[in-house]
């Protein structure tokens, strides 16, 4: 397997400009002769589809929701980073680049991250021009806030609904192109396989989720913008439909899957309330700017709280352990997500959790309310407090919130080179679905930035390089053996799911799988647990194929069938996550191996042996996949142990 990252030569700050000049161009008159498939209409997919269409390409865009506007990106709350330095507080492209490489715990590809920081400034310009109602100062200029532990104010936001407003901006550009006939939109359509012809991606096979009709679509290139795989854990902050199907089926066709064990556990989510729980809700990270995280110092006090015999307000100041402030005096409550999550887990493992299940800590605004007044707190976080009350029935102005970490984002994804092309020629991967920019840990407000950077400003250029080498008439007929064969595979899988006729629902398998992955490949991992998971998951998978119950048929809207297909993929993919976590004998970012920690309990990297991207190659059903390595070389940023003390 060839993992050539194709990083341009020359000084870091000039790589992208140089590369843009070196890239081949497609003749403007020829662009309309090319067809590009974009799967996904989130920030990455919608921005890519709209921009490609503006350039003149014919685009087909697919999503599984009933409208492209509902992609999961809509749910992002906090904001988007950009190195505008509008606050004059010392930000720069270099600083954003540096922070992102460091935040990713030196496991991302430097050149990609530098480009991301560079184009971040264009994103804000683009969105403002689309009419995105970003927060403003009285003078009419854009407001910023500091977010996710950054020491400069570089985050742009639109109340607590930044993702919504950015997505609606991209959706508006996409809608314009649909209206102009340059993009053909296929909502409620699920991609179930990618079609390879002579090793090149030439199209996809999809299912119409209303009629059940299976169809084949050919193109000159295929772009996957299908988001992250956090739902492998069943419970996560991701939307219900988020899945690994598109990327996993591409993996089975030969695309390398990189760093599947890198998942981000977000520290501030609403704790699980019971077995019925279908998903978890994030409380924006911005809350940590003013909220203080604590648990009682003593286990017996915590136990009384759990039993409802004591309330938070009964615990005297001196009996509280503000553990993040205590352990990390310079960053306090604003330490990066992985550090905050792990410390919360530790406090709860120590028997000091404060919710019934033991899995929850306080996020307290009492001091902020004293200092700023309730109305100022309401102004900043009102919608979040309202949301919290809707879900929990508790008023956070009066009682501290309770929070616990939850799966939130997946740094791993399909391997791509500098051009965002996977190792399968003609198959591009953008947004959360690829692996490239966040290393082992993503900083807050950087995913929106990456999705839009990829879609608006990177892919539309780099895809030209590939298309310039493909003749316009080099488009495979959908009646070719490759297309027909791929469709048969898809149909066979659907028939198989429907024909098991066992006793258990897709959800019950998903829940059980999620629990295994959460226990063994969650916030802390170790060899024994991972090995146990690698044994348990195939057993569960075997049961799935013997005892699954999917009612109904293929020829109509069948949500159980959709779900079963996704769970089938998670059941294979979960094992890959564990294998990757097992092979990575170090701790880095969100990947914490209990065997590899400093005496203070912090993550201990092993740069000598593990500064590589782990990219997995599929080797066939029930075969052990093969690990390939892309070595990471740091030219610009010196690798150091992260310290937030």
């Amino acid at each position, binding site marked *: 397997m060839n993992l050539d990252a194709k990083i341009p030569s020359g000084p870091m700050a000039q790589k992208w400009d140089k590369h843009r000049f070196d890239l081949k161009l497609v003749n403007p008159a020829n662009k309309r002769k090319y067809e590009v498939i974009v799967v996904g209409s989130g920030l990455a997919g919608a*921005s890519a589809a*709209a*921009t490609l269409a503006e350039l003149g390409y014919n685009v087909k865009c697919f999503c599984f929701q*009933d*409208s492209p*506007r*509902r992609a*999961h990106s*809509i*749910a992002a709350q906090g904001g988007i980073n950009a190195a*505008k330095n*509008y606050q004059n507080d010392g930000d720069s492209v270099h600083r954003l680049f540096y922070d992102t490489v460091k935040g990713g715990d030196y496991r991302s590809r430097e050149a990609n991250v530098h480009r991301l920081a560079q184009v971040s400034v*264009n994103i804000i*310009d*683009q969105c*403002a*021009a*689309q*009419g995105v*109602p970003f*927060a*403003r*100062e*009285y*003078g*009419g*200029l*854009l407001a910023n806030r500091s977010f996710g532990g950054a020491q400069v104010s570089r985050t742009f936001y639109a*109340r607590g*609904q930044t993702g*919504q*407003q950015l997505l609606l901006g991209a*959706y*508006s*550009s996409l*809608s*314009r192109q*649909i209206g102009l006939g340059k993009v053909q939109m296929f*909502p409620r359509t699920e991609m179930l396989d990618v079609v390879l012809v002579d090793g090149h991606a030439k199209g996809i096979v999809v299912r119409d989720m*209303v009629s059940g009709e299976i169809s084949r679509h050919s193109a000159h290139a295929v772009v996957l913008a299908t988001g992250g795989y956090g739902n492998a854990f069943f419970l996560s902050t991701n*939307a*219900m*439909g988020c899945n690994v199907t598109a990327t996993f089926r591409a993996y089975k066709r030969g695309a390398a899957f990189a760093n599947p064990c890198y998942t981000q556990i977000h520290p501030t989510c609403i704790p699980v*309330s019971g077995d*019925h729980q*279908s*998903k978890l809700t994030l409380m924006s990270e911005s809350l940590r700017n003013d909220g203080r995280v604590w648990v009682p110092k003593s286990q017996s006090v915590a136990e009384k709280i759990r039993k409802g015999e004591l309330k938070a307000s009964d615990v005297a100041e001196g009996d509280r352990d503000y553990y993040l402030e205590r352990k990390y005096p310079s960053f306090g409550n604003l330490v990066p997500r992985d550090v905050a999550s792990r410390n919360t887990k530790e406090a709860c493992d120590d028997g000091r959790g404060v919710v019934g299940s033991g899995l929850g800590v306080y996020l307290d605004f009492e001091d902020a309310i004293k200092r700023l007044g309730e109305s100022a707190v309401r102004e900043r976080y009102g919608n979040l407090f309202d*949301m919290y009350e*809707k*879900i929990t029935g508790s008023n956070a102005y009066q009682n501290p919130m309770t929070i616990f970490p939850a799966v939130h984002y997946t740094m791993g994804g399909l391997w791509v080179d500098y051009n965002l092309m996977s190792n399968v020629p003609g198959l591009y991967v953008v947004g959360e679905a690829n692996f490239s920019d966040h290393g082992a840990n993503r900083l807050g407000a950087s995913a929106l930035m990456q999705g839009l950077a990829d879609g*608006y*400003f990177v892919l539309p250029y780099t895809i030209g390089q590939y298309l310039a080498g493909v003749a316009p008439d080099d488009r495979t007929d959908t009646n070719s053996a490759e297309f027909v064969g791929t469709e048969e595979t898809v149909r066979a899988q659907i028939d198989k799911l429907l024909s098991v006729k066992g006793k258990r*629902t897709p959800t019950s398998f998903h829940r059980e799988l999620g629990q295994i992955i959460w226990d063994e490949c969650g916030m802390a991992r170790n060899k024994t647990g991972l090995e146990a998971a690698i044994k348990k998951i195939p057993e569960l998978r075997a049961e799935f194929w013997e005892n699954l*119950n999917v*009612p*109904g048929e293929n020829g*109509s*809207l069948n*949500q*159980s069938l959709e779900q079963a297909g996704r769970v089938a993929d998670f059941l294979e993919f979960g094992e890959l996550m564990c294998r990757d976590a097992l092979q990575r004998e170090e701790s880095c970012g969100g990947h914490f191996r209990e065997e590899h920690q400093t005496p203070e309990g912090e993550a201990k990297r092993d740069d000598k042996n593990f500064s590589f991207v782990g990219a997995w190659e599929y080797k066939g059903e029930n075969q052990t996949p093969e690990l390939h390595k892309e070595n990471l070389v740091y030219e610009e940023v010196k690798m150091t142990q992260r310290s937030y003390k």
Partner: protein
Amino acid sequence: MDKLMNLKLKVWRQDDADDVGRFEEYQADDISPDMSFLEMLDVVNEGLIGSGKEPIAFDSDCREGICGSCSMVINGTAHGGQKGTTACQLHMRHFSDGMTITIEPWRATAFPVHRDLVVDRTAFDRIQQKGGFISVRTGSVPDANAIPVSKDESDLAMDAAQCIGCGACVAACKNASAMLFVAAKISHLSLVPQGQPERERRALAMVKQMDDEGFGNCTVTGSCEAVCPKEISLDFIARMNREYGRALIKKGTI
């Protein structure tokens, strides 16, 4: 632990757009007050699948009130009648033991039923495609701070832009009017300076498409505002009417 509830559900079942549809009754037992309404339906569906029946189809994705997928009329009210709350954010603590709950899809000519509670809302997308945008190409734009925007106008634009496009406004309106949805988009874009050049075109094109899709007229009953999970104000409809009138005059149509 709060007390578990037993409820009776009357749910609209319809196989596809051509089917006439019917109400069916189900028992929802041992429902925890901490569940969301959709989690309660999940529980019922698990039971249905277990007994070899097809589950109730309904749309949902984010389950936190922002994607606009979930769409059901609960006891006669779109999204169930809690102020500023989508069905997915509605929690069972607002119901009580022994209650009967009726659940229906959005009902409007422009939103045909796909199955059970799942309807086709692509009419909204087509309205957007006619003018719900600012025509700027990627990369062809000025610096974001080159055009200052007054904070008040920007905040007001955001009030409108918050619309999640769920369609509750249509479902609640006796005329199945989409005015609140269209007004929110037209208002958002007409309030920001970047949206000025296309103001008239946009208002005319979006309103025309809205009419062509078969949505009814607004008779200002305010039922849309009452059910809107984002509490979009009726004032925006007045603003849209002004935009539309202004566009007609400018275009010399009247």
